[in-house]
């Protein structure tokens, strides 16, 4: 099969799975998950074949795989849609294929396949456990299967379709289609347990917040189209003429170039999708969804799609860039990225929910990538995007495994007040859950940037090196501190969860999870280590040059002008080492001896800052008070009551009163006889008053009138027609 055909086919199996499950197999859980996982496997297979073909193609950047069809006629031309694999989409396709497949497999175990149905489980609530009697007649409470098991696989199938569509798209329109389908699935899956009020609220919040960004993005798309007449990547971003035109046209706002303003509008879409400040508020709440969803949508794929889009449109930012001082758009992007990176890291430090820590960590890491793009570090951002997808998916799945293990403990003790997600209820899990522990450790170290071994080190180091080489000191300082905090909260998490002694009975009875859950952990941890070796800078002491810097060479080909690799410097490397070891060490020292019931050791030294961080800088409260409140008032009071019912209807009613003659005429001659009597006595005397004068027609039957109306119409018409001659 031609590679181009294969590219068209990549997104289809999960879509097919969605329809098959929804329409036919939703009664059978085994069949449903087999179809879903099978579909994910087919897409994975296609993705890998395409990736291999992409590796084998020389000058893939200049000559990518493409195929197009006409979609929307716009005047005399067509808006074409199509697929394309260039180096950037190839590497993204690679990690999407792997993470999606692993997460599909993981979901089977996570939703307790093979366990009995729950005693009191309801659709829309997480399973509460089932009672089983063993051969000795003892009753045990065990985990029970998710009541909406099939529905979950249908939804994630649809999601995977959206993500693959986005990746293989060759234009911003289908990218946007995939983007929104994912947004919908994110909504549906965050609110998967829809009987929980918190889940419902989180779902709607996620959709709204990202939608705010999406609309700006849509404006950017429309603006770009009105300037260039196309939305195809190749025709815009790989076309010097078009880029030059965009860079030299002035935009109507802020004295920017059209390229700058379009870039900024599109970037706001990413701010929503990739949960950047100030639209970050939805992602932590999104942890209400099942953990595979957090891993896939809210760490590895959908939020990464936001960054992917910014990487995709990168030539827009650099079109009017002199490669020295950043343009307005780039400065804004760099600022938002860097600020988000440090801001979210501070919050992560004070969270107790194992998933919330990871959520803020995701926001922060995405901020790293955005900051990198803002300062023009194209390759570094792409590299961190890929490594982060692997290790963050790993961490989320690991946390899901931990929670699952803890739920096992909760079932055992029967104390449902113990929150299986609160890290203060854990401790000592390394012995109970060894596979989860080791893989989580790998993921955590990758996130912290543990030197040389982990992928996260190489990609994060590259961002810092770039900031150093180009003298972006403020960004360098901010990101370095954020990296220090990252290592610190990661070690805090690892220590609280896995080290020390179990702090609750539940933790004592935690249990390693089934193979469907641990296999993905192992596979992903291979990438969390190994992928970094694909991007070792050429002049890195000792290791540089042994393995070629494949990532740089390959992905760099996406742009017309291959970006230069930055020269090696000792300083950023030193910073990387200090922050990684410093953060990890500090985290270990502070948390290694935490006992049950003890408050967070940070509470005292941080003072009032601690509740401030724990409450996420009070951003939710801010939005509720200053955005949602006024909006509701505008809608309910101002627009509806004052304007619509008050002013507009008021004018209309007073017009009626100001014209009493018309009013009484209508009342006496129209209202009363026609409407009142018609409705009042329920008889068919519609034209009663007319009937007094035309008594012979009045038969009291409505249809008689209708016929006479039609007849009159025809007779008069015919008469006039006749006279017309």
């Amino acid at each position: 099969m031609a590679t181009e055909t294969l590219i068209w086919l990549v997104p289809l199996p999960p879509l097919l799975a969605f329809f098959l499950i929804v329409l036919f197999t939703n009664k059978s859980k085994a069949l449903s998950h087999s179809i879903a996982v099978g579909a994910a496997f087919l897409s994975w297979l296609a993705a890998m074949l395409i990736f291999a073909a992409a590796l084998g193609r020389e000058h893939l950047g200049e000559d990518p795989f493409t195929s197009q069809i006409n979609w929307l006629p716009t005047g005399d031309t067509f808006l074409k849609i199509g697929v394309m694999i260039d180096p950037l989409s190839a590497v993204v396709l690679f990690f999407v294929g792997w993470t999606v497949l692993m997460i599909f497999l993981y979901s089977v175990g996570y939703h307790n396949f093979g366990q009995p149905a729950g005693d009191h489980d309801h659709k829309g609530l997480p399973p509460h456990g089932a009672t089983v009697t063993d051969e000795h007649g003892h009753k045990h409470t065990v985990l029970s299967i998710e009541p909406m098991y099939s529905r979950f696989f249908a939804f994630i199938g649809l999601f995977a379709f959206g993500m693959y569509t986005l990746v293989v798209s060759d234009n911003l329109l289908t990218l946007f289609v995939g983007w929104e389908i994912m947004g919908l699935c994110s909504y549906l899956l965050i609110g998967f347990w829809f009987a929980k009020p918190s889940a419902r609220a989180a779902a709607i919040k996620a959709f709204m917040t990202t939608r705010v960004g999406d609309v700006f993005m849509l404006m950017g798309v429309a603006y770009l189209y009105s300037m260039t007449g196309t939305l195809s990547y190749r025709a815009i971003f790989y076309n010097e003429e078009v880029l030059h035109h965009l860079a030299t046209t002035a935009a109507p706002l802020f004295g920017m170039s059209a390229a700058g303003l379009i870039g900024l509008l599109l970037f706001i879409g990413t701010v929503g999708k990739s949960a950047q400040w100030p639209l970050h508020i939805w992602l932590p709440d999104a942890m209400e969804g099942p953990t595979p969803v957090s891993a896939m949508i809210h760490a590895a794929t959908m939020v990464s799609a936001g960054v992917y889009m910014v990487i995709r449109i990168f030539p827009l930012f650099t079109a009017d860039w002199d490669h020295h001082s950043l343009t307005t758009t780039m400065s804004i992007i760099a600022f938002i990225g860097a600020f988000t990176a440090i801001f979210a890291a501070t919050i992560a430090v004070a969270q107790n929910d194992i998933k919330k820590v990871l959520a803020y960590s995701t926001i922060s890491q995405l901020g790293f990538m955005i900051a990198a793009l803002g300062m023009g570090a194209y390759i570094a951002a792409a590299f961190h995007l890929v490594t982060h997808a692997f290790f963050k998916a790993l961490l989320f799945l690991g946390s899901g495994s931990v929670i699952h293990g803890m739920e096992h403990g909760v079932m055992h003790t029967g104390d449902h007040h113990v929150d299986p997600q609160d890290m203060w209820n854990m401790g000592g899990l390394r012995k109970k859950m060894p596979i989860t522990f080791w893989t989580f450790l790998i993921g955590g170290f990758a996130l912290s940037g543990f030197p040389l071994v982990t992928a996260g080190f190489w990609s994060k180091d590259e961002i810092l090196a770039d900031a150093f080489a180009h003298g972006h000191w403020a960004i360098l300082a901010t990101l370095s501190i954020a990296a220090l905090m990252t290592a610190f909260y990661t070690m805090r998490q690892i220590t609280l969860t896995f080290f020390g002694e179990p702090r609750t009975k539940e933790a004592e009875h935690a249990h390693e999870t089934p193979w469907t859950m641990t296999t993905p952990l192992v596979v992903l941890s291979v990438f969390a280590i190994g992928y970094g070796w694909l991007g070792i800078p050429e002049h890195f002491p000792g290791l540089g040059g042994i393995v070629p810097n494949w990532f740089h060479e390959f992905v760099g080909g996406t742009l017309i002008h291959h970006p230069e690799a930055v020269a090696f410097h000792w300083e950023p490397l030193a910073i990387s080492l200090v922050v990684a070891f410093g953060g990890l060490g500090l985290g270990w020292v502070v948390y290694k001896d935490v006992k049950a019931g003890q408050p967070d050791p940070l509470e005292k030294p941080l003072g009032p800052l601690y509740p401030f961080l724990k409450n996420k800088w009070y951003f939710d409260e801010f939005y509720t008070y200053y955005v949602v409140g006024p909006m509701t008032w505008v809608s309910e009071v101002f627009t509806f009551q004052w304007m619509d019912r008050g002013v507009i209807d008021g004018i209309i009613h007073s017009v009626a009163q100001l014209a009493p003659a018309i009013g009484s005429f209508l009342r006496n001659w129209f209202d009363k006889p026609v409407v009142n009597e018609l409705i009042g006595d329920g008889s068919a005397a519609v034209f009663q008053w007319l009937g007094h004068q035309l008594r012979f027609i009045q038969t009291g039957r409505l249809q008689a009138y209708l016929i006479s109306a039609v007849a009159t119409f025809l007779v008069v018409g015919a008469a006039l027609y006749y006279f017309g001659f």
Partner: protein
Amino acid sequence: MNFLLQPLTLVTFFPLLGVLALVFINGEQKNTIRWTALGTALVTFVISLWAFFFSGQFNPANGDLQLVAKYDWIMVAGWNIRYYIAADGLSVMLILLTTFLTPIAILSTWKAVEDRVKDFMMFFLMLEVGMLGVFVAQDLFLFYIFWEFTLVPMYFLIGIWGGPNRLYAAVKFFLYTMAGSILMLLAILWLGVNQGTFSVPDLVAKGGIPVDIQFWLFWAFTAAFAIKVPMWPLHSWLPDAHVEAPTAGSVILAGVLLKMGTYGFLRFNLPLFPEAAVAAAPTIATLAVIGILYGAAVSYSQKDVKKLVAYSSVSHLGFVMLGMFALNSQGIQGAILQMINHGLSTGALFLLVGMIYEQTHTREIKVYGGLWKITPVFGTLMLIVALSSMGLPGLNGFVGEFTILLGAFGSVAYGSYWYAMLSAIGVILAAIYILYMFQKMFLGPAGEITHHHEIKDLNLREIITLLPLLVFIFWIGLYPAPFFNLMAPAVEKLLIPFQAVLMAAH
């Protein structure tokens, strides 16, 4: 006989045959009456399909008026009034939408209307004749007759089969629309007398209406059409009419009657008064944008789900107007497609709301809750339609909105990006009110009604009623090219005079 066998004449007046048949059926035989009405509507639909696609007399690649039937009618004292009907790319989809939605609406009344079924069906079929007449008439006088004629059956549909406050709603609907129509009538008479013909193509070809008079005529027509659309601030009859109207009435009201207003702009205001249209474009766009935002804001605060849908129409029709007065091919094509989309999505929303109302007799949002769990099919269909209404890519609403945005962005007539930028905020607001509605009614714990009331999921008839709409919701969303192809040549033709006018104006 030739006269009656003209394809368009046949389509337009065929429902009258049904009315005639109904006269002879005993009012007690309700099912016979229903089947007769449904059969008539279905045959009308088939005839309309035949007329446009299989008769070989209509070629969409040609932008001109086709399927012409033209007879002198009233030719006294210098009045040249003709029976002149025809169709082109601007009207073909609206005609099909009418013949498509009517049987669906009739099917939805199967259980909902038990009272005076015979009268109901007669009015309904007569309404169809009126609507079709509006879309095919090419003579201003004839158009006006059809235009006013639609008021009567709708007035009775609301006034007899409506809700508790139907009297107020029916009178408000009637008077409001009448008030606008009178101004249009004056303008029509002026044109007929001064230009010596009522034929629209002749008037367009003749042209040469002085610009200052164009201005007055333009706004006189606008008065009638803007009320019908309805454009802000002339919309306040709409929520009342919708809330009181029976389900089938709401479907037709939202699906087709409102489009008579937007179609009127397209057919008369633009070609007859091009200079005035260009001059008015920013004003119309401003009103459209206000309507988009205002309608969305008010929708959010509604406690009654039907009112919510009604106000959302104000917002959606704002998009149609915004696209149309962009006066470029994307804007107008998007506007026409969005008329169809709105008919499909909002029609489906009203059907769904009606289906639950039949069981519970309340439309208050807060008494529902947890419906998805109890009625999965209903919930799923509602979600799809809601998503289509809020413009999710992959479904029809997005294609229309996106094309309109492209048009508004590149509009020379507007000369500013701001209209497009601000209207896009409406897209966010749409998501808010639709999803809140969905959340409150379908998710979460069972509400008062869902708790105490045995609510059944959709039955086969109801699913069949909705299915055709869903097919088009997906079709237009995934592959809209055939729909655009149908209208593109006519739109290009419509735009020819504007190129010169726009050049001169800017």
